[in-house]
């Protein structure tokens, strides 16, 4: 596959790995005090696990898996809102696949579907639009979620709906923004992250400029990365090289897709349709300022929140849930007391276990479960001692 296979070349991977090992030997980090690089985006977490990239890195580097999984940070209250909408008999509720399994306080969308709600999985908001055209007597709601990568597609779909004068199409908007989120992570007092691997597809839309504050104000290097394994490895290489050379800046590894200015058409559609919400709630991180968007007044007719009554309750996570600490990179997924035994993909307590990009699900699915549980028991003993 073009532009895919070339970026999965194992020989080049070995070279990168060798280069990273060589550079790290000259830097003052080791297994006890590793260089901590946070990959913000769930897609990167998936690549790291699927290709065993951590195994190719020296123990003096620790990859910390960040909160960039929009499915994972969905608060239970919002899932309940989705279920309430889906349970209306006049509604066809459309959603991306990975959102269907996230547990609400009563049920997930998948369970709602089993109970008779008309919940349909779609690949694209355009497919939801088509459903609206084909079913004029039903209300079609699209569950819009994702970071800025997905905002243009939602916005453009809404604009198309307006052009066609559709009266039965609306969006339930749960889009979140990257910059306030990264900032919340950076401002977290317990945090020690040394550098970031930035989400390439968010930058495809936003460009490089919105992330320049990270090296400038927080003095942490950041490399914008593509999603193939060589992209991620090369981005880690470039990050380490910044440390080796005493630099601290935004570097773009994903130049074949990301332009410094971002995508003008996408940005225009986003700004036309969306505005920032003062606060938006994140599972595990609490409320973050300016971290969500809502549909502007001018497009109110396409806003499911205004059109229908949603319960809009704030539901706290189960007390024992440590999703928040994992999302902030304070503990590794396998260090969560519920990991593996109580909380697993068949029976997820928190959303980090539900989505296949969630750090916990990644560790559970791709990692060695008995070994991880053993590690946790060991670290518990050391803490107690």
């Amino acid at each position: 596959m073009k532009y895919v296979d070339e970026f999965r070349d194992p020989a080049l991977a070995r070279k990168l790995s060798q280069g990273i090992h060589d550079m790290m030997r000259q830097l003052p980090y080791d297994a006890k005090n590793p260089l901590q690089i946070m990959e913000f985006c769930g897609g990167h977490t998936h690549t790291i696990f699927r290709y065993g990239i951590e195994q190719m890195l020296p123990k003096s580097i620790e990859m910390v898996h960040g909160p960039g999984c929009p499915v994972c940070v969905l608060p239970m209250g919002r899932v309940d809102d989705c279920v309430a909408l889906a349970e209306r008999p006049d509604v066809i509720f459309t959603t991306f696949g990975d959102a269907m399994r996230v547990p609400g306080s009563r049920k997930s969308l998948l369970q709602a579907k089993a109970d008779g709600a008309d919940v349909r999985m779609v690949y694209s908001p355009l497919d939801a639009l088509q459903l609206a055209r084909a079913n004029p007597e039903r209300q079609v709601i699209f569950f819009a979620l994702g970071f800025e990568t997905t905002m243009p597609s939602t916005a453009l779909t809404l604009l198309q709906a307006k052009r066609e004068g559709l009266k039965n199409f609306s969006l339930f908007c749960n889009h979140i923004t990257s910059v306030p989120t990264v900032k919340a992570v950076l401002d977290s007092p317990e945090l020690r992250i040394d550098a970031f691997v930035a989400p390439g597809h968010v930058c495809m839309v936003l460009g490089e400029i919105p992330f320049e504050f990270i090296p400038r104000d927080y003095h942490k290097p950041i490399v914008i990365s593509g999603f193939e394994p060589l992209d991620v490895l090369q981005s880690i290489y470039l990050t380490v090289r910044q440390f080796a050379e005493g630099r601290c800046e935004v570097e773009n590894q994903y130049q074949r897709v990301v332009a410094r200015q971002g995508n003008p058409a996408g940005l225009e559609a986003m700004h036309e349709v969306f505005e920032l919400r003062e606060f938006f709630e994140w599972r595990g991180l609490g409320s973050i300022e300016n971290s969500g968007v809502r549909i502007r007044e001018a497009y109110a007719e396409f806003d499911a929140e205004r059109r229908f009554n949603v319960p809009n309750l704030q539901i706290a996570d189960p007390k024992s849930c440590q999703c928040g600490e994992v999302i902030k990179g304070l503990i590794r997924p396998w260090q969560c007391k519920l990991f593996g035994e109580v909380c697993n993909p068949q029976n997820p307590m928190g959303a980090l276990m539900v989505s296949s990009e969630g750090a916990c699900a990644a560790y559970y699915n791709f990692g060695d479960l008995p070994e991880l549980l053993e590690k946790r028991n060991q670290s518990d003993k050391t803490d107690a001692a």
Partner: protein
Amino acid sequence: MCLGIPGQIVAVDDPARLMATVDVSGVKRQVNIACIVSDDHPAAACVGDWVLVHVGFAMSRIDAEEASKTLEALAELDEVQQELDAIQHSAQAIR
């Protein structure tokens, strides 16, 4: 929300609605091309473009030249490394 895959535009189906057909390894899907058209690059000009496909939208054109540069940089790693090793060895030899 980042699953994007490269594909090639093989036909423009509806220029007014900016819909085209993309081919990913023989699999075809309709996509919206609003994000890749401009005055310099109208819908009709998109046929043959390699694009990044995400949830039914062509989000960005893939720059073939930049792709090559990235791969070349990787291939050159070895050479740079060898050069650095050579410098280090020669420095040690002098001591």
